[in-house]
């Protein structure tokens, strides 16, 4: 029996050694780099181009799930097994990465290499890379949403294509005329498709904010914010031009890349839709789709939500100097032209959007609306965020209240008041926990610091 166990033990050790030896190594002579980003065909091409331009590197993608990406990067990096570079999707994520200490401050490195971020990048995307005047992330692209129109559905309804600027009143009347019902009276083609998570866009459009300018208070209960959410709710339940949660479930929305709303729009189930230029990465696969783009209707405020990715270098990466080359690649012409050609939103660097190829992509001559995308970025504003509350905690609270509004279970003013109160309570808890934030908070608010 002893011999049996001894042999088994030896075999297990041997198998472990074999497994260790079989571990995939980078091609000889190449420096491996790992990038955590969302997985999609565009990203693969961006990696291939980098590997082609920099044959000394072997860049690989570690796919990030849309909902569970940040914590994975953070925990792996703190444990010393993190990626070399990773993407942040918004100012709140950047803040979390900076506060956890895993984001490398690249301000001086970029300056040494002659990269002037603030002078070259669309201002709307800068908050995704810059925190307290220090650069941590290099903006990789920028998106601002507009209204997609399906020209064939407009033609079928005998409607003229809208041209901006236009008002919400005009929009609602048009969308109502574009609704098509089946024999049972159910809407089979919606005038307008919009994901509910686009609510921050509407708050901006109505002149509201989620947080006060200094981030010390949640102000989602302001009259403007309430009006915005009420408007969104009314698009579903009063005007019946936008899908309700039940309709959304019918679309089997799974979120993320190529999500339900995009595919639903591509399949001709909606005449107009709120989305970004990056939708083309999916919509180009739908043959015969005749598309147009018009800016979002607005009243007095002409502010649109800007979002995108910024690539951050892991402070604990043993190859962080090499990783800088990847960021410099993102600052270069080849990468930015590829972003525009792929329609992975827009190039973050302004000048690459002012080329003839951007306006008229020879591979896609039907896309004659690129000027609209470039114009709306000028009015882009980054998401509101507060350094005094964890972005995910705040979102959990806000989404709970917005869920109740979305399912028509709670009046908007009450939901927004409760949301603001709960987020402000969370801010108070965070201040109690974090002395550095407490000092900053009292400095900003001018209040006495309690003993």
């Amino acid at each position, binding site marked *: 029996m002893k011999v049996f166990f001894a042999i088994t033990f030896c075999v297990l050790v041997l198998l472990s050694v074999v497994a260790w030896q079989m571990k995939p190594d980078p091609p000889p002579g190449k420096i491996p780099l790992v990038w955590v980003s969302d997985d999609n065909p565009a990203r693969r091409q961006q990696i291939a181009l980098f590997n082609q331009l920099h044959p000394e590197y072997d860049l690989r993608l570690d796919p990030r799930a849309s909902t569970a990406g940040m914590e994975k990067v953070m925990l792996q990096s703190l444990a010393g097994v993190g990626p070399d570079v990773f993407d942040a999707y918004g100012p709140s994520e950047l803040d979390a990465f900076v*506060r956890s200490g895993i984001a490398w401050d690249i301000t001086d490195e970029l300056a040494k290499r002659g990269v002037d971020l603030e002078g070259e990048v669309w201002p709307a995307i800068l908050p995704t890379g810059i925190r307290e005047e220090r650069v941590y992330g290099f903006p990789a692209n920028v998106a601002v949403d507009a209204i997609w129109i399906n020209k064939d559905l407009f033609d079928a309804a005998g409607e003229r294509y809208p041209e901006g600027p236009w008002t919400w009143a005009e929009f609602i009347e048009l969308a109502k005329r574009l609704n098509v019902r089946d024999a049972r009276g159910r809407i089979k083609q919606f005038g307008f498709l919009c994901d509910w998570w686009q609510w921050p866009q509407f708050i901006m459009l109505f002149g509201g904010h989620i947080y006060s300018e200094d981030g010390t208070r949640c102000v989602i209960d302001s009259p403007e914010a309430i009006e915005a959410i009420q408007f969104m709710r009314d698009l579903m339940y009063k005007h019946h031009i936008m899908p309700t949660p039940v309709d959304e*479930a019918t679309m*089997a929305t799974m979120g993320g890349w190529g999500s339900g709303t995009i595919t639903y729009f591509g399949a001709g189930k909606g005449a107009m839709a709120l989305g970004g230029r990056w939708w083309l990465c999916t919509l180009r696969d739908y043959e015969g789709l005749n598309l147009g783009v018009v800016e979002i209707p607005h009243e007095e405020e002409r502010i649109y939500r800007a979002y995108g990715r910024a690539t951050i270098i892991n402070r604990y990466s043993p190859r962080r100097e090499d990783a800088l080359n990847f960021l410099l690649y993102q600052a270069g012409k080849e990468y930015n032209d590829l972003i525009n050609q792929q329609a992975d939103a827009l190039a973050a660097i302004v000048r690459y959007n002012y080329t003839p190829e951007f306006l008229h992509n020879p591979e896609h001559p039907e896309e004659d609306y690129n000027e609209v995308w470039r114009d709306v970025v000028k009015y882009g504003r980054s998401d509101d965020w507060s350094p005094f509350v964890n972005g995910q905690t705040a979102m*959990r609270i806000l989404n709970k209240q917005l869920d*109740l509004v979305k*399912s028509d279970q709670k009046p908007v003013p009450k939901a927004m008041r409760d949301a603001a109160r709960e987020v402000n309570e969370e801010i108070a808890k965070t201040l109690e*926990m974090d*002395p550095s934030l407490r000092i900053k908070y009292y400095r900003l608010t001018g209040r006495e610091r309690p003993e």
Partner: protein
Amino acid sequence: MRRRHELRAALGFLLPNLIGFGVFTAGPVLFSLAISISNWHLHRTVAFQWIALRNFVELLHDRDFWLYSINTAYLMLGIPVAIAGSLFLAIVLSQRLRGIVVYRTLFYLPTFTSGVALMLLWKALYNPEFGALNAAINWWLDSLHLNELVQALGGGGVSAPTWLLSTKNMLGLDVEQIRIIPGQWGLGARDALIIMGIWIAIGGNNMLLYLAGVSNIPPELVEAAQLDGAGRWAIFRNVTWPQLAPTTFFIVVMSFIGGLQGGFEQARVMTLGGPAGTTTTISYYIYTKAFEEFQIGYAAALSWVLFSAIFVITMINWRLGHKELHY
């Protein structure tokens, strides 16, 4: 000399297991106990401090903790139904039927199928518009003209539930406060998860345990009862059920433990804890606090409260259940 030699050999065999237990179980458990009295946060700006029982005190005032505890308890309402279903199925499958092995395999299928795949399947079944479940309910409502009937009686009409999109529930529990309100009465996401849980559990390990229990009942007991003229129900009540008491006791204890720890996979795959937090259980809340909000110390305290609840409930089960065991 020989004794010492044997002891050394025994320790040698036990050592790999003890090392594994120490490193991967006992160590992390003790570590989590230690950090539950700290403010450990993954943000470096929060300086690490020992804060004694402050996490536990805060937890008592955390309204979400209580709401999610209620969600956890609510989802456990399916346990008695699942146990009864497993018992029924085990008795049926213990009969000498043709192709019984095939039936047993089919009923056990959900247990060895990927949980995520099953959940995605159920998500499709619960689609309010195109799901098979609502298609059946709507057909039934139309066939019996129930809608017209309720409207004629002055009611607001009857419609199929929206399942995973609805905060309604069988007890009428409010979403934001610990109270019952009539407006919340109905079928919603929580009930959808209960139904799915029952479906998975009925043909699962509980059924196997009962099947083993049923096959271990001495046949002479059943024969004696039959000779005394006992019918099927009398045999079940007076022979089968008492003989299965130890199995039932084990299943109840394990189901309670599983129920208190459960809900994570369903929340992660099907609902993300929504709508409005109604399918967030304590285990999902622990995950959220630790890995989304980075409050590791607080999450550890939550884990220990959950452990204590499981321990106390298991002890109560043990005390009460043990008395009922007849042999």
